[in-house]
């Protein structure tokens, strides 16, 4: 059985020692990290630290040195995220730190996805997402994006306060399968409808392309605005995106 001291990376050793109390999880993590090489451990450590620039550089180096894309993904990135999940569940870190780790994960996946894609493992679909005009509340959107990317979607994040014109330009540029919009405020919710209207006016509206969400948004409101799907949270967002893709209704702009 692997011991904590078998893990070469100091940060990972310290994190497991300090934050992983459950014996089964401790044993599983120790075995996982101990079997990974120093370079994979370094990627995990940078991800746990939310250091996207270091994850970017180390992933690039590992791939250039001949490590396979799947090995970097499994033994570097996902292994690190497993420890992040435990720290989050146990209240050591909170949503902002999780999102920083997700950003670091994305920095690594940016090098891995083209390799997977070139070898036939295509993304489940492409999604453009943003909060609507006037809305700066982005936690829900960011969690949706994290979940979508973790499920194998390619997501273009337009950020916050996205005007209808910006949504339209992004759809024209990226030709996504799906468009996601979120609003947290009752005052900005109508901008979901205004954006959909702008797509109609631009002649770009595909019948089953737009999904919406946000704390005050309901299925009835989404229906009234002419959206094609509503997700109440990040998990529902992924299920909805998969369902729209599976129906083949989200295949065109």
């Amino acid at each position: 059985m692997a011991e904590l001291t078998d893990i070469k990376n100091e940060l990972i050793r310290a994190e497991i020692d300090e934050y992983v109390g459950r014996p089964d999880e401790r044993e599983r993590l120790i075995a996982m990290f101990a079997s990974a090489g120093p370079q994979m451990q370094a990627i995990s450590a940078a991800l746990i630290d939310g250091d996207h620039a270091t994850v970017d550089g180390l992933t690039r180096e590992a791939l250039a040195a001949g490590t396979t894309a799947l090995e970097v993904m499994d033994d570097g990135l996902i292994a690190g995220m497993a420890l992040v999940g435990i720290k989050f569940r146990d209240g050591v870190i909170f949503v902002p730190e999780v999102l920083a780790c997700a950003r670091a994960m994305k920095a690594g996946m940016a090098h891995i996805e083209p390799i997977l894609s070139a070898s036939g493992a295509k993304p489940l679909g492409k999604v453009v997402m943003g909060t609507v005009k006037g809305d700066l509340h982005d936690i829900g959107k960011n969690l949706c994006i994290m979940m979508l990317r973790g499920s194998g979607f390619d997501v273009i994040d337009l950020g916050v306060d996205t005007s209808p014109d910006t949504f339209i330009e992004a759809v024209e540029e990226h030709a996504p399968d799906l468009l996601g919009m979120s609003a947290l405020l009752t005052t900005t919710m109508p901008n979901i409808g205004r954006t959909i209207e702008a797509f109609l006016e631009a002649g770009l509206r595909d019948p089953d392309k737009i999904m919406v969400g946000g704390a005050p948004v309901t299925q009835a409101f989404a229906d009234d605005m002419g959206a094609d799907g509503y997700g109440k949270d990040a998990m529902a967002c992924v299920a909805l995106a998969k369902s729209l893709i599976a129906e083949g209704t989200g295949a065109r702009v």
Partner: protein
Amino acid sequence: MPASDGTGPDRSDPLAAGPTSVDPAAVQASFDRLSGIFSEMMLTVAEVSTRRCPYKDRTDHCTAKFGCRNQRRPTEPGELLVCGGDDKLDYRSAWEPG
């Protein structure tokens, strides 16, 4: 490293040598594993967000890009604003529109 005559593959570009074979089932298994980790995180998000503002980081600083009545001046210049919320009342009522 690239060959000295410049014709060899550029090892700094992982795609330069061409795609290697990747088992789609193994890729799917990896995404399933990642998705499972994230799904468990979402359960924690749902639970934690009932009692703690999701924009508040582990050091009680505010990461929001909008105004909130719970925001306090940082202790050091250049730091994020400090969250003054007590996590007892619904934090959402303190959020401001922009």
